[in-house]
């Protein structure tokens, strides 16, 4: 409340006034359901994730190997020329620790999110995913990480077919 105004006119509305019907209200919940066509490029990408593989598309003009794949090179504005598998390992380009959920409530376990430049893809191209099996204090730029896939029977052709990426060094004894 502004310091200059000590008392606003009228009575303050309390949430109980709404809950108990003392003031008129209208409620309406939007019914908006979408089913986006994945298309040629992302359709293939998701099919490959189901097989625990990551696929890129390539541009013969600029030579880029692009993940996620697309049917056009946005820099050259020409159709892509082919498909190429990239590795499920990469390095951390940047990362953050999300302590809050989308509704701004504090998460019990923070989510570790990272941009991962994938091995075999062109520089600065890769995937955004979560990190796991790592202490948040120990995440570093350039850290080598590897995808941890869900078991075959649980993979459905989704970005979440990869559970998370974990540091490579921790798996070698």
């Amino acid at each position, binding site marked *: 409340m502004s310091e200059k105004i000590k008392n606003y006119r009228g009575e303050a509305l309390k949430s109980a006034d709404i809950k108990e019907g003392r003031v008129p209200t209208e409620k309406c919940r939007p019914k*908006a359901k979408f089913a986006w*066509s994945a298309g040629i490029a992302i359709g293939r990408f998701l099919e490959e994730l189901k097989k625990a593989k990551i696929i890129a598309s390539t541009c013969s003009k600029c030579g880029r190997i692009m993940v996620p794949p697309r049917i056009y090179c946005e820099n050259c504005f020409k159709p892509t020329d082919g498909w190429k598998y990239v590795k499920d390992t990469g390095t951390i380009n940047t990362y953050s620790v999300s302590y809050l959920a989308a509704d701004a409530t504090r998460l019990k376990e923070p989510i570790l999110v990272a941009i991962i430049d994938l091995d075999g893809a062109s520089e600065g191209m890769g995937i955004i995913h979560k990190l796991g099996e790592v202490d948040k204090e120990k995440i570093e730029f350039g850290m080598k990480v590897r995808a941890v896939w869900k078991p075959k029977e649980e993979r459905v052709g989704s970005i979440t077919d990869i559970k998370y990426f974990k540091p490579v060094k921790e798996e070698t004894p």
Partner: protein
Amino acid sequence: MSEVAIVGVGCVGFQPILPELSYKELMYEAAVKAYDDAGVDPRKDIDVFVTCAEDYLEGFSIFDEFVPDQLGAVLRHLFTVSGDGLLGLANAYMLIKTGHFDTVVLEAHSKASDLLTLMDVIAFALDPVLNRPLGGHPYYVAGMEMNRYLHDTCTTVEQCAQVVVKNKKNACGNPYAAYGANITLDQVLCSDMCFYPLKKLEISTPADGCVVMVLASEKVAEKLTDKPVWVKGVGWCTETPNLETRDWSKAVDTRLAAEMAYKTAKIHNPRKEIDLAEVNDLFAYKELQHMEALKLCAYGEAGKLTEEGVTARNGELPVNPSGGLLGMGYGLEASGTEKLLEVVLQLRGEAGRRQVSNVEVGLAHAWRGIPTTTGIAAVLSNVK
């Protein structure tokens, strides 16, 4: 001030559904065709990109951000108009008129099939306190408007049905049309009553598709093509959103939009000076009501003219030779560019078996659908 021309067009669709392409791929395919038609490289030759989309129809917040890649507009100058494609045309036109820009790309698309609850989203455009609690399908608004329009003008249900017969037949000759058909007046009149007096076959069905166009200033246009289509004038207008107080008989927003466009285009007698018109026919009666608002005929006269065949493709004033939205499909925010595409093809003499002979001036018109009162009109010509 430089004149403004459309120098390239590209279209993919319209189809009932285009499940094989994502919206990005759909836009890319249409853009490739438009740039090829214009002979331009979007990475070097285009000053500004204007796209038209409404977030709620796309299912993305801030949809603007999802459009540069597929148009060749990465790290270029781009903005999105939250409105019909013809409003995008108005923006593109004004950009070139400022003298600061020579080439502008216009894009509008529909991926209506991605939206599983289209009518619920349209219902969400109704006032949440005064209208929505009453329930029902939002197209009852069209039923009320048609009823009042027929009552006031003595237009008959047969005359409205004739619009459907004409447009669906025209669409048979249009490779960009999703719903061409040879049907009879009786089939329309006997189709299900949906929103009295509006019947099922009088309602346009949604379709997927994309239209991309390249616009250029006079000096660039004349270098690029020997078939420029000049934008002679654009106008737009919105009446009140209140269902309770709007004009239910005349499309007054379209009337004022047309007057704005005609003023710039120096059109004094639209009926005589316009050779073909592509007008919004989301519902059959709307074609008639819009013809009157666009001054193509007197108030209450459009039904009679349609019955007499004046608005047929080979009539004295062809209206919707493309097949209209009834024949091509309702392309959401691309609806206006469906109209614009046909006018451009007709004025270039490239409309194939639906070509209207001796055309010099064409009119493209859009209405933003239920429950809006926004009309947009554009006058185009193949003569500078």
